[in-house]
């Protein structure tokens, strides 16, 4: 324990020295430090902070030091997180390699693959994208069709992946590909790393109902991939994928909680746009109840998360609770968006017009964008299937 106290003190001191003021504020989207060829820093402090963290391996604090990671144990990692949180330190690096591929490579990759890829992920030299979904394979991911043929000294890949986040800025992509079209669905899938700079790879941005988006469709047209980029055994990619999917779902829910809206509260907005009585109550009793319902649900969600935290602390986790989080959170978010739009009335109909305020603009854009939350990362329908079968045990 003594060591940990010392580690905490040292970490705190180090962060206070090396995390400059501008990196201690809530991070704006345009100031996020992403990995890879198009990495850029919005100011010098950001670069200094990134480089200092990178050099300690704290972009991936609990990965083994031999591959460039921080080499911290679980307690040290927790301490680092706590100290970073205490100072409001921003995440030093954004990358799908950090969040998702790294843990999978450490678990399933060959020694050669770890040596080739992990250090570059830690150092933010390569930006990774994820290639899972296809136009015909969404909820039913295992029906994916991107074809990967064994051509002796290399694989040949043909097909397309959709919802590949920021693939147009990525250097590499990890993909699920079909290597045995005759096997039962999950049994013919492999996990492959593909250099986005290879011949035959192209991307096209996807425009959403909310406007331009971070999503792309990625096309593979006779792309040659060296055989040493296969992770795990041939046709055993589904196991790697399932591991990663867990991280994705966790990521999705933490991402949506990361987008802290510093918007006006819904109550303030309602008071501004609809009549109030002298005692401050909303005159529209129906609106007042709708807002109340939303606030009650939102508060209950927070308490559900707190309950999970208490369960974890007591090592008495009820695994059924976690299954409800995504559906509950995304459905309530959409209800809130609809309420906000109603409250704005005519002012909630504008789209990037001069007379709209920033806040109004954000509300309208969020309303449209958040429609995707009940679809991406496992549709609500799939979530309900999972709850019904796994939490409640209803027959398949």
């Amino acid at each position, binding site marked *: 324990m003594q060591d940990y106290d010392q580690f905490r003190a040292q970490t705190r001191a180090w962060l206070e020295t090396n995390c400059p003021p501008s990196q201690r504020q809530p991070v704006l989207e345009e100031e996020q430090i992403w990995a890879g060829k198009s990495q850029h820093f919005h100011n010098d402090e950001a670069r200094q902070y990134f480089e200092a963290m990178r050099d300690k391996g704290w972009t991936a604090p609990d990965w083994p030091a031999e591959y460039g990671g921080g080499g911290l144990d679980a307690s040290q990692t927790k301490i680092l997180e706590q100290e970073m949180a205490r100072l409001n330190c921003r995440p030093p690096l954004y990358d799908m390699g950090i969040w998702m591929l790294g843990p999978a490579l450490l678990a399933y990759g060959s020694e050669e693959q770890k040596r080739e890829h992990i250090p570059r992920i830690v150092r933010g030299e390569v930006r990774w994208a994820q290639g899972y979904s296809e136009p015909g394979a969404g909820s039913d991911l295992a029906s994916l069709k991107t074809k990967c043929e064994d051509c002796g000294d290399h694989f040949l890949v043909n097909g397309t992946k959709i919802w590949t986040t920021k693939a147009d800025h990525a250097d590499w992509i990890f993909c699920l590909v079909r290597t045995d079209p005759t096997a039962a669905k999950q049994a013919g899938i492999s996990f492959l790393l593909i250099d986005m700079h290879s011949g035959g790879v192209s991307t096209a941005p996807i425009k959403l*109902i909310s406007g331009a988006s971070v999503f792309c469709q990625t096309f593979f047209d006779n792309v040659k991939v060296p055989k040493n980029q296969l992770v795990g055994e041939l046709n055993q990619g589904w196991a790697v994928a399932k591991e990663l999917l867990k991280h994705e779902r966790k990521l999705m829910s933490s991402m949506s909680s990361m987008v802290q809206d510093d918007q006006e509260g819904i109550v303030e907005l309602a008071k501004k*746009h609809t009549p109030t009585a002298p005692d401050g109550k909303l005159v529209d009793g129906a609106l007042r109840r709708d807002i109340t319902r939303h606030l009650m649900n939102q508060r209950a969600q927070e308490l559900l998360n707190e309950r999970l935290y208490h369960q974890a602390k007591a090592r008495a986790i009820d695994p059924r609770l976690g299954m409800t989080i995504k559906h509950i959170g995304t459905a309530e978010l959409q209800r809130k968006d609809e309420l906000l739009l109603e409250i704005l009335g005519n002012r*909630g109909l504008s789209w990037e017009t*001069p007379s709209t305020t920033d806040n109004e603009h954000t509300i309208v854009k969020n309303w449209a964008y958040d429609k995707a939350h009940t679809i991406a990362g496992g549709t609500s*329908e799939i979530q309900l299937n999972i709850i019904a079968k796994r939490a409640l045990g209803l027959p398949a």
Partner: protein
Amino acid sequence: MIYNEEQSMLRDTLLDLLAERSPPAALRAWRDRDGCASYDNDLWQQLAELGLGALLLPEAHGGLGFGYLGLGAAMEALGRHLALTPTVGSTVLAGELIERLGSDTQRATLLPKIAAGTVFAVAVDEGSHYNPAAIGATLEDGRLNGAKTMVLNADLASHWLVVANRGEQLCVALVDPSTSGIAITTEQLMDGSCVSSITFTDVAVGDADCLGSGCSRQAVGEALDIAALATAAEQLGGSEALLEQTVAFLSEREQFGVKIGTFQALQHRCAQLFCELELAKSALLGALYQLDSGSINLASDLASSASHAKALANDCYVKTSNEATQLHGGMGVTDEMDIGLYLKRSRVCNQLFGDSRYHCDRFASLAGF
């Protein structure tokens, strides 16, 4: 409560024309081009030739006498194809006001213009929520002052009608858009349609430029209620198109080796949408039928019927568009599909002539509770 042969034919003719000339995807292109305008004048000229300006007017003034059910049939077709036209703003709102309030001369002069497709705009709204009972604009000593929002097709109209207080009474002033003292801003809404905000500063309006004499409050209320019904018809046309597209998608898309339309949870959700759509259509058709048969008490029943129909149409279109988006999965949230166009149009229609909070409140007040 059903369309007669002429009304059905009108709808089908419109559907054919729009399918070729202005399918839903045309709204995307219209939205994305530079500049903004509330409707495509070339398209409107074609539609006006089919009689969209003359739907409701008496034959003596160039009208075609399709009746209110005919209006519903036309709006349903426009709603299905997401067509932006000045039908509600000009044909319905201006037409009804002139018909109800105008002197014989005004009716004889203006109604044939509307029938022929000349576009009028009517300015009523002033706040962020529809509330025609709270008019702040004034006409005093021949000067019009005030600010109007959400004015439909004012950017292209050659004639404006402005609702304002004249002493204790409400009047409808005929204003030439080129008169001095007028400032107009036209902005695009989320669906690609445009509305205008207009301020009037000491704009000269002669007494003869008001529609009729006496108080216009009841007539303005009636015209707005009929515009609400027309909008409801558009909303239900849109809802029906969305439900059809969703059913088609579910019947085609495969996951887990089966058509996803076989999943019972999705089937029940679609079935529920169908029930709500048919209920809302019944409310609308009931109101239109009553108007046509003259069996409605304009002073009391029309307001209640309009609130009934508009509230149900609002909720139907909002819910159907949300469900359609979700049931289309990933594709539903891309701009590539038309679903998003309907989704946004539904929210604009939802505010036009009153959202459900407004109409539920009014319905209850009219029912005395």
